[in-house]
């Protein structure tokens, strides 16, 4: 095996790895090389502690009772919202709506913004590399309204073809919703440009940021996104909590998403007055512990610095590309010029599922399958890929373990 790069470390990786209890686990008797970060990330102890502490010392319902516990719960919840505002550089905290995850965020925008507004013949634009969660909610809107779904094509490297996008835009285009970073290919899309063009045609612009916020600084004002969605669990936070950012003007004009408690100002059997955003979209008792833990995750990422994380991951991505290039059986799928630390690949003799099982026996965890992006797989002519995705705590040793195990795949399958 080659020596690790001689570059000075970007941060103290050993100390960071120590923050993540799951990384200390042995898998099938081997040290864990966790390279499935695009599916979900492991959680630092600070996040786990917040969940525990919340239920020990702050558990109450929010925005209601006058007792001290309720005050702590409300403060924890709203403090997480303010932290999210800082993280995304939103203008107001109230533009950050707590949801279960990116999927719910897209569904919320589709149902509460698009569905009441769209008419037959209107058009919604998505891209060829969307996750199913940024396709199906819009298809449902199309079914309900008679609107039409249009798709920005991509080239063989997995990059969107901007000329084709431009040609798709017209006065019927109401919504453009595009993935910031492709989960299946790692492509970083030029979302600012995509949004600018959408706005020129009077369309509203949404970004699926599920694979972006953990890899790069996202500034929703600079992006000029109308909606931006992400999930906590891919950002070192817990499952079941995510964010829909929406510009104030949109959130204010939107219909509620679900009815219930918390989202109202007053209810009578004759007339109900809805609460202001974001509460209008947060019916029922929310995931308070999840929100508090999301704040801890954001704190963790921000104190490390998203730019430093990005630099660390970029270095590892380059190391991985170089290391894997020695294995002639490995063929990368998705070779965009702008790429996040996602390595999708196939091997001629071994199916991704078999690759996944052999790697698993060596403690190397990757994802195999179509990555909930079947149209993208179809476009690139592969039924499935194997995908290694890098997070802030990965090391060259993880990549070496991956490379060694892939040699074993080649040995077994010839």
């Amino acid at each position: 095996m080659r020596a690790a790069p001689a570059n000075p470390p970007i941060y103290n990786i050993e100390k960071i790895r120590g923050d993540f209890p799951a990384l200390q686990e042995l898998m099938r008797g081997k040290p864990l090389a966790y390279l499935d970060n695009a599916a979900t990330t492991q959680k630092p102890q600070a996040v786990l502690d917040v969940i525990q502490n919340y239920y020990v010392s702050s558990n109450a319902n929010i925005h209601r009772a006058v007792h001290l516990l309720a005050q702590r719960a409300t403060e924890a919840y709203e403090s997480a919202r303010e932290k999210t505002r800082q993280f995304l550089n939103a203008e107001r905290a109230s533009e950050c709506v707590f949801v279960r995850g990116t999927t719910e965020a897209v569904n919320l925008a589709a149902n509460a913004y698009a569905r009441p507004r769209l008419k037959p013949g209107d058009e919604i634009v998505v891209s060829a590399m969307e996750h199913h969660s940024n396709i199906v909610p819009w298809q449902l809107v199309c079914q309900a309204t008679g609107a039409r779904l249009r798709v920005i094509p991509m080239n063989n490297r997995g990059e969107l073809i901007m000329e084709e996008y431009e040609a798709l835009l017209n006065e019927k285009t109401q919504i453009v919703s595009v993935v910031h970073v492709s989960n299946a290919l790692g492509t970083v899309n030029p979302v600012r440009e995509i949004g600018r063009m959408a706005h020129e045609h009077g369309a509203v612009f949404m970004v699926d940021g599920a694979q972006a916020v953990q890899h790069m600084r996202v500034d929703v004002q600079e992006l000029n996104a109308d909606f931006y969605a992400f999930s906590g669990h891919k950002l070192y936070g817990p499952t079941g909590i995510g964010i829909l950012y929406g510009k104030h003007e949109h959130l204010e004009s939107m219909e509620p998403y679900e009815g219930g408690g918390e989202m109202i100002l007053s209810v009578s059997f004759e007339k109900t007055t809805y609460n202001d955003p974001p509460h209008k979209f947060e019916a029922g008792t929310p995931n308070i512990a999840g929100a508090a833990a999301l704040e801890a995750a954001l704190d963790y990422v921000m104190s490390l610095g998203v730019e430093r994380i990005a630099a660390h991951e970029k270095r590892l991505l380059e190391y991985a590309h170089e290391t894997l290039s020695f294995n002639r059986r490995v063929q990368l799928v998705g070779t965009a010029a702008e790429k996040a630390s996602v390595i999708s690949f196939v091997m001629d003799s071994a199916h991704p599922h078999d690759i996944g099982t052999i790697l698993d026996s060596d403690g190397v965890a990757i994802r195999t399958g179509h990555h909930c992006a079947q149209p993208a797989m179809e476009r690139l002519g592969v039924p499935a890929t194997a995908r290694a995705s890098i997070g802030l705590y990965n090391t060259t040793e993880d990549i070496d373990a991956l490379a060694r195990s892939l040699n074993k795949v080649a040995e077994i399958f010839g």
Partner: protein
Amino acid sequence: MSELNELYQQTILDHNRNPRNYGVLEDADGEADGHNPLCGDKVRIYIALEGDTIRSARFEGVGCAISTASASLMTEALEGKTLDEAEELFAGFQELVTTGQDAMDAIESLGKLAVFAGVRAYPMRVKCATLAWHTFKAALNQETATVTTE
């Protein structure tokens, strides 16, 4: 033998590389499609009957080594079996890959299919091994809808 070697036995690798009974079966009495939406594996099974005996079975499709080898070995095993015997074989196979019937015992009742004993150590792969069999059952019943593992 390590769990991995037990899973990827030579017989399985061989049937993956050189699948037997691969291709269309003209004049099939039944055919059906199977699909594993989790990994994208697809298989089509054809069967031809003579009375209640399976005269021939063939398959087409794309999938992992386990699902390809399973389809290949299944078509071999089914040839000449009565429908009742085929049913028994399927039940025995399912027991082998899920509950972990002893491989040595399995050789007696399942013959070559016993090479799939290693699958039991990998619960995530059981569906790969059984997709062809579920699709075979659908072909028998001439079900038109695609069988899925979900």
